[in-house]
């Protein structure tokens, strides 16, 4: 009748999420929970709604119906609430979206200074630590255009981390990279997972999912079709659509 055990703290709660673009239903009733420190990998065919789902989680898309709680706080479609949530949810994009008119260091300290109102010296110190962590300290004064794709994406990760987010969202972070540059970005992400960051990752890198994910979620037509441990989903999928997707992926 009482709490015999303490449940794991949940970082993300999604209840009955629906998202329409005009008349098209793109997210069709998703319920999901992500615990603190958990790494969840989303897989699914192109157009299945993975990006849209991820973008709902930090309020880049407005919800048609349902609710999302971030660390128990409901995401409301008010700019004050959105700003609050977005400080806690970092996002890394396929195209990096670095600010081209700012140097690497300036990219990273921009939001800490102007949003968190940190002192510039403190923000720079944090930025330099993060740059060392992603192995790019020597690029601090470069402009984004002079970086390789892998370096650019690592800067984008450092930029998101500078806000000290509780959650990090990754939308195909390595899809725009030349194959030989994928590894350096995945290494940084793996390190982040080991440090205990709560992560939701859309990726086609199945080796990464096997190794790092605590859970894999397969999405099709805006619904969760199947979810489970990586070994279950990759080794012994139950649903026909999961099997079809995975066999297409392997060919």
């Amino acid at each position: 009748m009482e709490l015999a055990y303490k449940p794991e703290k949940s970082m993300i709660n999604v209840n009955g999420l629906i998202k329409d673009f005009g008349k098209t239903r793109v997210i069709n009733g998703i319920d999901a929970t992500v615990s603190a420190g958990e790494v969840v990998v989303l897989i699914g065919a192109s157009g299945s709604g993975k990006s849209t789902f991820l973008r709902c989680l930090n309020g880049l898309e407005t919800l048609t119906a349902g609710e999302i709680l971030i660390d128990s706080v409901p995401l409301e479609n008010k700019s004050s609430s959105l700003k609050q949530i977005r400080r806690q949810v970092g996002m890394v994009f396929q195209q990096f979206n670095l600010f081209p008119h700012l140097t690497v260091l300036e990219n990273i300290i921009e939001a800490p200074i102007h949003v968190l109102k940190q002192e510039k010296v403190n923000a720079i110190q944090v930025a330099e630590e993060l740059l060392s962590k992603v192995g790019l300290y020597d690029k601090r004064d470069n402009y984004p255009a002079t970086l390789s794709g892998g370096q650019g994406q690592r800067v984008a990760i450092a930029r998101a981390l500078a806000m000290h987010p509780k959650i990090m969202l990754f939308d195909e972070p390595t899809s725009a990279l030349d194959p030989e540059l994928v590894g350096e970005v995945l290494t940084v992400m793996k390190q982040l997972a080991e440090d205990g960051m709560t992560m939701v990752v859309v990726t086609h890198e199945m080796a990464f999912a096997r190794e790092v994910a605590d859970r894999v979620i397969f999405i099709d037509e805006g619904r969760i079709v199947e979810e489970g441990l990586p070994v279950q989903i990759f080794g012994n999928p139950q649903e026909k659509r999961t099997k079809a997707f995975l066999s297409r992926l392997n060919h």
Partner: protein
Amino acid sequence: MNLDFSIILKYLPYLLQAAGLTIELAVLGIAFGILIGLVAALLKISHTPLRFVAHFYIWLIRGTPLLVQLFLIYFGLPQLGITLSAFASSVLGLGINSGAYLAEVFRGGIEAIPVGQTEASSSLGMGKFLTMRRIIFPQALRIALPSLGNQFIISLKDSSLCSVITMSELLQTSQRFASVTFAPMEFYTAAAVLYLLMTTVLSAVLSSFEWRLSKENRTRGC
């Protein structure tokens, strides 16, 4: 032919002074125009009903001659109890006029920035205003700069229209000397040469500015 350009020398100090006033009108006019243009551009891309005000302003100003606008401000407004000096009317007219063209220039620059930039900054918790000021506008300005420079040159030449609302700028001053000395060819040639000098220097300054920026951008790749 009895042209005597030596007569210009005697009046040159006055002509240069008048050219100074021309520059002053152009600079203040364009500065005011940048301000109005920016506001109009932001209103136009906003999703508020105020965007119709911006649409109306741009439509009205671009669809009527600057000379008519100057007449309305200088001769018309006093009837409504608003009397402005010729100088204030000139700056206002040049500002309102260039602002309508600059609004479109700024809007184009802002809309050329990929939506990913806004998404990245909102994901970092930056609000709309901060995003515009720190991320979008600095990039948009680089794109808008050539057209902004072009409008500056247009406004400099357009300031000659202010002669008809009693401004003693370069054209009006030349006109006055032309009639008292009976040497219109000499004075209007002098005026043309001075305008040409100003626009040439201005475009040289602007293109060296653009060149520096584009060199920067080549290393930045934006």
